[in-house]
């Protein structure tokens, strides 16, 4: 579609077609079409209120919880239309990490990681320990917590809590993880660690990340999408979007002239 910013060849893992979201009749996003390529990192940038988070939260049906919210259009997962599917099923395949670290305060680190499995009624109790270790290693937290898995999750620092939330999401083995500004509440060092984690996850998982930090988008992602006022303005290879965007608006935004 856009010739000078060729998107890397890969199958779409998640795809939206004419996705629109209204809150109490007011448009939040309009007719958004985007493909999240398999095993690539896609970042969504744009000024506050442009609908980045709304787009992300619609994909795993989180918006649908909010009274007065209406979602239209289609969402495809691995080529299959999931728009009318059961939210619980969808969320097990498409996980989410939120802006503020939100571990379960009454649970230990260990229980936080396996919360999703336990509640889903998993009978694979004998492999819990294996899953806990694997998820925490993937999230880059294992070495810091392996000797105190039984302490409350609240004893961790903010950055560690966020990596615990990533581990918790990984434990249910999703194919896609949506990240809604996962580092905006964290210090630079924690941010760096989480970016490393995200980078390492790419080989196994498709990642979509909403960010306000353009350097982060540039560092991390293969594909960047720019949204403005609820519409998808431009999608392209990250280097293309930041160096030679097609649309005037994108260039103004990435060069810091507004937003």
């Amino acid at each position, binding site marked *: 579609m856009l010739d000078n910013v060729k998107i890397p060849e890969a199958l779409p893992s998640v795809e939206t077609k004419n996705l629109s979201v209204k809150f109490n009749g007011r448009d939040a996003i309009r007719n958004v079409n985007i493909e999240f390529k398999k095993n690539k990192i896609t970042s969504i940038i744009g000024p506050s209120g442009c609908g980045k988070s709304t787009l992300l939260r619609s994909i*795993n049906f*989180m918006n649908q*919880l909010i*009274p007065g919210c209406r979602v239209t259009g289609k969402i495809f997962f691995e080529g299959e239309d999931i728009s009318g599917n059961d*939210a*619980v*099923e969808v*969320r*097990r395949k498409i*996980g*989410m990490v*939120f802006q*503020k*670290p*939100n*571990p*379960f*305060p*009454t649970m230990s680190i260990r229980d936080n990681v396996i*919360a*999703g499995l336990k*509640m*889903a009624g998993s009978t694979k109790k004998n492999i819990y320990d294996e899953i806990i270790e694997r998820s925490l290693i993937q999230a880059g937290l294992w070495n810091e917590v392996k000797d105190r898995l039984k302490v*409350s999750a*609240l004893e961790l620092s903010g950055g560690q809590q966020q990596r615990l*939330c990533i581990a*918790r*999401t990984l434990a*249910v083995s999703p194919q896609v993880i949506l990240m809604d500004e996962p580092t905006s509440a964290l210090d630079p060092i924690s941010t760096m660690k989480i970016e490393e984690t995200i980078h390492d996850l790419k080989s196994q998982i498709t990642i979509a990340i909403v960010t306000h930090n353009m350097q982060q988008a540039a560092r991390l992602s293969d594909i960047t999408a720019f949204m403005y006022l609820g519409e998808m303005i431009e999608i392209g290879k990250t280097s293309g979007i930041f160096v030679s965007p097609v649309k005037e608006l994108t260039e103004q935004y990435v060069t810091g002239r507004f937003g």
Partner: protein
Amino acid sequence: MLKEELLRKKRKFEYRKFKSTLMLSLSIAASIIAVLPLLYIFFYTTASGASALNFDFFTNLPKPFGEEGGGMGNAILGTFIMLMIGSTFGIPIGIMTGIYVSEYSGSVMSVIIKFLTDVLSGIPSIVIGIFTYGLIVLQTGKFSALAGGFALGLLMIPTITRTTEEMLKLVPNTLREASLALGITKWKTSLFIVLKTASSGIITGILLALARAAGETAPLLFTSFGNNFWSTSLNEPMSSIPVQIYNFAISPYEDWHKMAWAGAFVLITLVFVVNLIVRIITKRKFTLN
């Protein structure tokens, strides 16, 4: 000119300071008046009932007039048994209603239920007693512990519903989202994540509801009635602390008055201890971020 201005400012400041001191003194005076009755009750019941309070008081049956000693062991046991009966349905119904009103707020049904539980909490306890009398005592043809426990359970429901709802609303929404995003179903999220996070607050509510129900006399007067003997049969009339106090207090005998005071002391101590426990629990509460 300047000096005059300064003086005027100073007078204004003095006046403001006076007003502030006056209001503060009035508030302190009101607070003292508010707690004075409690202190007075506490000292008076201790002074009047202490002489009748001994080990026998907790283990013996009430003695007929004229005999020395005796206690209200059966009344203490009866109160506990009837609280247990009330709890078996009052606590789960109260909590589940609280969950419904909080977690499914917004639906017309939940608004109506919230309104109705508020009304229920305002209904005088004697009306609950009459209702239970009509529903159970008249049907079964006799006073019973079951009827008394039922009345106490009904009284507990609105308090528990209210505290559950308020405590659940304090749980941040991000926690619900975290759980749902893991593919955990809504009911499991409500029960195992949200309710668990709010549990210390809810236990507080339950303890306070129990303490309140333990002291209720009106709903027991014509449901469990009272009993001068040890009875654990749920189908028979059963003694309870407040009703026993009432019976002792309206008697013409000095000894029995003392027993009534001692009973009152036990009740107050119970409420006091429960409040103390509640304080300790809420202090240790998990901090939510």
